[in-house]
């Protein structure tokens, strides 16, 4: 398994293709992430960071270019296969935690395990509780997601992203809505996960202090990688 976890080959993305409002957001983006790397993606607002992250996360397709996940070209996969690959290899943490409010915290963590028949089984509840303990929230596991603080919610979101033991964790401004102290705590957690489990992490952030504590920083300006 010497294939990099992720390799982008001249990825372009345009919105509203063919319309007068056509906007090119990404231009020939090349990027490779080695296994176990913790990379910070920085850049001004509107430069295309979230767009890039959605493409890497298989939520969106590039207009052109190739995206290899663990050496597999994703351009050849249909929707069902993409969903499967996404579920098994990629974890998401969004800026706005995106927990499902109808569920308790631990149920949110359980969700990725439940949707996958291969994982569904009696031991997944233990796994979810263990993840809650790992992010330091064992006590509030059965709280409703919306009754938790922003920092707690983001920790739950990280626990959820780790549920499937993904190869790649994508985080889009995970600390953007948090105060400095909570932000530090959440970042420490991700750093710890990266060290202990060897999870490859790609984190979008506007916080230079946190970015400096990553293994590598990549800048995106006007849809191009500059560093």
């Amino acid at each position, binding site marked *: 398994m010497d294939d990099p976890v992720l390799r982008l080959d001249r990825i372009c993305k345009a919105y509203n293709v063919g319309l007068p409002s056509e906007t090119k957001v990404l231009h020939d983006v090349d990027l490779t992430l080695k296994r176990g790397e913790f990379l910070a993606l920085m850049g001004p607002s509107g430069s295309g960071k979230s767009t890039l992250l*959605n493409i890497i*996360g298989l*939520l*969106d397709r590039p207009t052109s270019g190739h995206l290899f996940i663990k050496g597999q070209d994703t351009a050849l996969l249909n*929707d*069902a296969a993409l*969903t*499967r690959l*996404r*579920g*098994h290899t990629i974890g*998401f943490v*969004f800026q706005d935690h*995106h*927990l*499902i*409010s*109808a*569920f*308790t915290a631990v*149920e949110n963590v*359980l*969700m*990725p395990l*439940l*949707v*996958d028949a291969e994982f*569904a089984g*009696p031991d*997944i*509840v233990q796994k979810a509780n263990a993840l809650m303990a790992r992010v330091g929230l064992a006590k509030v596991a059965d709280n409703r997601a919306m009754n938790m603080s922003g920092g707690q919610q983001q920790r739950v979101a990280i626990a*959820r992203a780790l549920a*499937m033991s993904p190869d790649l964790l994508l985080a889009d401004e995970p600390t953007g809505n948090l105060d400095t102290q909570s932000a530090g705590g959440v970042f420490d957690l991700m750093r710890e996960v990266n060290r202990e489990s060897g999870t490859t992490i790609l984190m979008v952030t506007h916080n230079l202090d946190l970015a400096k504590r990553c293994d590598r920083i990549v800048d995106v300006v006007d849809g191009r990688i500059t560093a």
Partner: protein
Amino acid sequence: MSRWLPFEWIAAIRFLREGRMQTLFIITGIAIGVGVIVFMSALLTGLQANFIKRVLTSQPQIQLIPLDQIARPLRNAPGVFENASVQRPSQRVISVDQWQKVRDRMQSMPEITAISPTMAGSALAIRGAASRAITISGIEPTSYFTIVRIPDYVVAGVPRLNSQDIIIGTELAKDLGATVNDKLNVQAATGTPVVLTVTAVLDLGNKAVNERNTYVALRTAQSLLGIIGGVTTVDLTVKDIYAAETLAKRIEGSNAVEADSWIATNAQFFTAVQAQKTSNTMIRLFVALSVAFGIAAVLVVSVIQRSKDIGILRAMGASRGQVLRVFLIQGGVLGFVGAIAGSVLGAGGLMYWHSAMRQADGSELFPLMLERDLFIATALLATATGLVAAMVPAIRAAKLDPVVAIRG
């Protein structure tokens, strides 16, 4: 939480529970619709069953009566008949021709369970200055009571019929000021007047009937009406009441009698039941339609409200099929729970109505018929309706683009 449930079920139930108000309102709406269906259907079955019960216990299922008396011109007589106008003769009270033979033939038919000859006619009952027109039925008590359960209707006295006895209705008793053991003068247009002793007073549950119907021994009626040895009808009960009409036709074919089955006599009732059934079906259809639209409306709104959640589920690895099922299940569950609540509502209403609405004599207006099949069918229908109604919203949810959904 039920962690052993598949993901789709957990998500569906959580979504329904979180949308408390919407869920509650739509279930209430479904319950009312289902309740009406259950109530109406059970009432209809009850009334039908009640009628059948009456047919089985208080009237003959086939009556044999003399053939119509027809005037016929003598076609074979000498002379010319032109424009012969044939008038219908007035129908005298006449006997069934050779009724003993007819009875013997009936006795040999295995489909027939009881046979009772009756001599019926009009007479006048007189007591002191009061007189009333009555209908006299001369019967053989043992056989007649198996067809019409006279003893069940006795309110005073004992249903005994010797040659000097008469059984009368409550209204007649009141009108004549007569009661058990009192004597009545009874007299018909033909025949001999007799003095009879009241042995029992009946309540047949109908004022007009209680005023007119009286019962005497067969021989008494024969002499009173002046037709010695004759009977006006032979009453029959049969094994299979629904085969009564075909049996009646067969009897007519091989006997010189007219055979009227309860089915022919009550043709109106069957038309009414059919009309009821048709309107019931229409009501069901429209209730199902409005339930379907209600569920669809609630779920369409829910899909919009939850588009972000749907996007997250997709990002977490949920397939389009799973999202589709989450919403289909919600529709099915709404229909099912609504049907359960509606069944309880309908059954409760029926029980209340059953106890509140009584006939004048305190007996039930309709029998309470709560059949399990009705509830099962209703629950299935409502669940299926919910599933179909959820189709459009569910497809919409499944088609959501996760990127757009998450961006909000």
